[in-house]
């Protein structure tokens, strides 16, 4: 697949002057973003600012209308094969988990490896149990999503994405739908992923997580990237008034 040159200077995700509209609404304005291999990016911004749209463009859930997006050496266009190829290397975790309610946790995890990667049932099962162990819910493997707590569901969703052995993980507000006491278990899972060198793009308002894990924090407002800084610089010396206003709201 992609990633033929594994030089650390090669951008893993490369967005150049990306624009997108929802009808008349201009949701992404000239977004340019380079993510190197192993980087952990936190994206934040007020609601409706386009942060979810931005990461959804990376795996082609949203079509971008102008500009270039290159993911792991593959340029996204509207060719179905390209989109499939990109999606195989990019995992995604959703705010609402989006586990398949009619399948057990284990079946959720083995579905795509068996159907997309043509893995054998036993191989897929072993892989799934490996990742479920990694997120510490292997004991729940035979339960249905509705029998799990929110935090467990989200960890199962992370395991499901990991089963495709992605090189890049996208997180779209993974903790926003969780009760506060469950946020931590999910964040811990994400921290351990980061420690293993996974390239991560994470839309979140968890600023502690950003400080602890991210190597860059991006602030986006009205479809435009306003800040792109290391966490220390971002939190201590924000450049824009909008960022300061946002941070004061978020951090009380």
């Amino acid at each position, binding site marked *: 697949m992609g990633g033929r040159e594994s030089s650390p200077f090669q951008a893993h995700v490369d967005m150049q002057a990306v624009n997108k509209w929802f009808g008349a609404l201009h949701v992404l304005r000239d977004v340019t973003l380079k993510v190197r291999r192993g980087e952990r990016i936190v994206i934040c911004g007020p609601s409706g600012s386009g942060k979810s749209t931005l990461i959804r463009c990376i795996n082609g859930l949203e079509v971008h209308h102008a500009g270039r997006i290159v993911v792991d050496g593959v340029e996204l266009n509207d060719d179905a094969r390209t989109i499939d190829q990109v*999606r195989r290397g990019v995992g995604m975790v*959703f705010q609402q988990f*989006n586990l398949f309610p*009619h399948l057990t946790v284990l079946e959720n995890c083995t*579905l795509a490896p068996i*159907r*997309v990667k043509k893995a054998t049932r036993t191989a897929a099962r072993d892989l799934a149990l490996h990742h479920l162990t990694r997120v510490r819910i292997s004991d729940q493997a035979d339960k249905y999503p509705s029998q799990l707590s929110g935090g467990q569901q989200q960890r199962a969703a992370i395991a499901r994405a990991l089963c495709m052995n992605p090189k890049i993980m*996208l997180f779209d507000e993974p903790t926003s739908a969780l009760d506060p006491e469950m946020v931590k278990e999910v964040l811990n899972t994400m921290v351990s992923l980061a420690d293993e060198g996974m390239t991560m793009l994470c839309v979140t308002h968890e600023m502690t997580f950003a400080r602890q894990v991210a190597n860059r924090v991006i602030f986006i407002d009205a479809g435009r990237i306003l800040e792109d800084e290391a966490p220390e610089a971002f939190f201590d010396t924000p450049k824009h008034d909008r960022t300061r206003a946002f941070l004061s709201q978020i951090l009380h």
Partner: protein
Amino acid sequence: MTRHGRPAPMFRDWTNTIATIVLGALLAYVAYSFVQWGVVHAIWRLPDGASSIMCRDVRGEGACWAVVVERARFMLVGGYPIDEQWRPYAVCLLFVALYAASLVRTLWTRWLLAFWIAVPVVAVVLLRGRWLGLTDVPSEFWGGLPLTFLLSTAGFTMALPFAVLLALGRRSTLPAIRALSVGYIEVVRGVPLITFLFMAAVMFPLFAPQGVNVDKLLRAQIAFIMVTAAYLAEVIRGGLQAVPRGQYEAAASLGLSFWSAMMLVVLPQAFRVSIPPLVNTFIALFKDTSLVIVIGLFDLLGAAKAVIVDPKWVGFGVEVYLFAAAVYFAFSYAVSRFSLRLERELQRAAGTA
């Protein structure tokens, strides 16, 4: 104050008491008259050699159940040759077993689906007999309950795949495919079912090449499939709408193709939501198969109607129709009770999710 849903105790205040007494008296009178007619003065069977004059003498005062007793076999299996009657009875048993198995939730597997396809096929093979080395019985001689079961079961199973395609087509982003699906669904649902049966009876033969004579039963079956597909498509569309968008996105982000996502993720969920309305559509189809009598096929109702055309039994329609109604009722009521229970169970399951 009103309390909905649960009937209150029998006597609450004086209006209730009066209503209960008045209505109760009325009901008691109706019940009394019915028992007088249907039991006390009724004739259950004619002595050997007696003619139906005996029944005519009590007309208006007593029911003539003798017509039902004497003609029940004809109504249940139609004009099928007497020597081969075990075949339609076996077919009835097969279908009843299929329905009974479908009511058990633990049996809901791929196998059940396979049986819904297999049982009608076996039924046709057994009724025809030719391929089994049995006496060949052409479909003109098939009738009664096996015909009702066959038309409704095969109609439902064969309509399902078309219905899925129509439902997906109606939600498609491709304008031509959407327009065709919407057009088909709306036209079929906008005209009476009977027009399609007339089409099957008189128009299909005009479409077929010379010399090709498609069996009338098969033509009626095709009409039922065409119509049922449109109604089922709307049911499935409802189910598809109930599947949240996040499910499509999650499937896509895992790299599943459109058809894989549909078959593995979306449709299984859509079907689960749609089971109660699917069952209701089946009941409606089960009852609607009775319309085949207008094109001269003898299903249960057709056979009943044929009985009272017999000069011997002319004038005993009420008894005959009550019998036929009882048979239809037994099936539809059982299935609809099940559907109701299922709906509650599924709602409860959704509530805990």
